[in-house]
């Protein structure tokens, strides 16, 4: 191997290692993504007293992003009284009639004290953003 080709070869090897991996015909290795959206932090072990209290602390909140639009404020204040708005974002896209029935169920079967005009607004919001024809990824 000439001195020049030795330099080129060494440069190539170093460059490839820097580029993130050695690649031969039979494999590809050392590829790492630049972000890790799937990581979650570990919780620390609690310090316990010897009494009879068994306390796990607060349950975490994972507040979802709701679609922007008229009615969002009402959804956040009224629906949130009894449950997380994850109940909304968890649903599949549902037809307008089903959303209307859901809001009615919350009021009639579960007793949610929602004024009629507000209920209409909430229903319209859900129909406008969480139905098959308009549901978007957030």
């Amino acid at each position, binding site marked *: 191997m000439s001195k020049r080709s030795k330099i*080129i*070869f060494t*440069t*190539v090897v170093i*460059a*490839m290692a*820097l*580029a*993130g991996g050695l*690649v*031969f*015909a039979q494999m*590809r290795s050392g*590829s790492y*993504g*630049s*972000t*890790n*959206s*799937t990581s*979650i*932090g*570990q*919780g620390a072990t609690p310090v316990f007293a010897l*009494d*009879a*209290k*068994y*306390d*796990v*602390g*607060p*349950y*975490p*909140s*994972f*507040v979802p992003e709701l679609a922007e639009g008229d009615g969002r404020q009402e959804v956040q204040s009224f629906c949130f*009284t*009894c*449950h*997380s708005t*994850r*109940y909304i*974002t*968890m*649903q*599949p*896209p*549902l037809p307008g009639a*089903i959303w209307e029935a*859901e809001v009615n169920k919350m009021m009639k*079967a*579960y*007793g*949610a*004290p929602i004024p009629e005009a507000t209920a209409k607004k909430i229903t319209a919001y859900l129909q406008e953003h969480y139905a*098959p024809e308009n*549901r978007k*990824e*957030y």
Partner: protein
Amino acid sequence: MESIARKLSRRSTLKFLGAAGGGLALASWAQGTRSFAEASDGAKPLESFAGPGANPHWNSVGPYVTEPQKAPLILLTDRPVQLETPRHYFHTIFTPNEAFYVRWHLAEIPNSVDLAEWKLRVEGNVNKPMAFSLSDLMQKFKPASVAAVNQCSGNSRSRLQPRVPGGQWGNGAMGNAIWTGVRLRELLDAAGVKSGSAQVQVEGLDTGAGPKGMGSNRFLKSLDLTNAALDGTIVAYLMNGEPLPLLNGFPARLVVPGYFATYWTKSLSWIRVLETPDDNFWMKTAYRIPDTPRGTTTPEDMKTGKVKTIPIERMPVRSFLISPDGSSKIPAGLDVTLRGIAFSGYGKVNKVEISDDGGSTWKAAELGEDRGTYSFRGWQAAWTPKTPGRYSIAVRATDEKGNVQPDEPVWNPGGYLWNKIERQELVAGKAN
């Protein structure tokens, strides 16, 4: 360093390397530049919702979250807490406590229980109302243990077509554990049930923000005192030999082997003997199924208002392929062991079969150890993808009462009782 790496990974650099690197085939690497610096396919995030078609994934599509005393589980909702168990935890017959799914109904679920104050009360139509501390339960009664599957009534709700509102569970709203505690009948006997009593009602420590007298205020479930399921029912203070996580019902929960989890009240604190059948929301309106074969109906029939409903009770027979799970490609010709679980709320599972030809022919799987009538039963079967291709593996179980998993879907407005034959696509690639 990072910026150098980024520069070097540019296409022009790769072309230079391709030209200079004699003996190294770099053309395919250069073509793969786009994906090179991005996450691998395996780490590509799932969509944030599934539908309006059926959820095609084994589990629901939510993110992983950590909650107190739990391993990372799949989030459905955070208030009240609903978490799904990821598929891989079903490799073992007993589901680890920290991975066991969670489903509460009312938002004010206990964060803390003071055992110096806490009592399990047996009251109502009894001769002598009782209040037991946890140490009373542990010491005054002979412990009884049972292996039993706890499955949410709405497990797999995201499979229904058309979709129905509710917790959009994949298949992971279930778990199997060895439950140890006191037999319910012994607690009832200690208090002395008065003659003419109808039902036993259970209530836990959870409450809701809704108005008094509504389903959003208290969660109450009841069973007939004559129900044979009560003979096997225990008040469990141990789950797989350990205290229950608070999210799974510490300090004690009801265990009704064979029955859906709606009756397995968590943080159980009141056992009430009722003179008349319970007509509260959670019995009269919620958790009801059409009184039809398999509890199935149609949206059109529901609209007529003539579909008679009854409270949901036992779990229909089900089986699942746990591995391989389709997340990896299998080289053709390689012998693979298909493994999974099966259970039924009607009796012991005594047959599991697999098919790789769309259900034309079925081959019996080998059953694992019998851990009890209402436990998961493990199964395995050897399988070899002889040639490269896309295979669909179907699994079906049969229980001792002769119930066989059907290939027809179920539909009811609550999204309950799903037990259609499960299928898993497996891809076999070329081996050379």
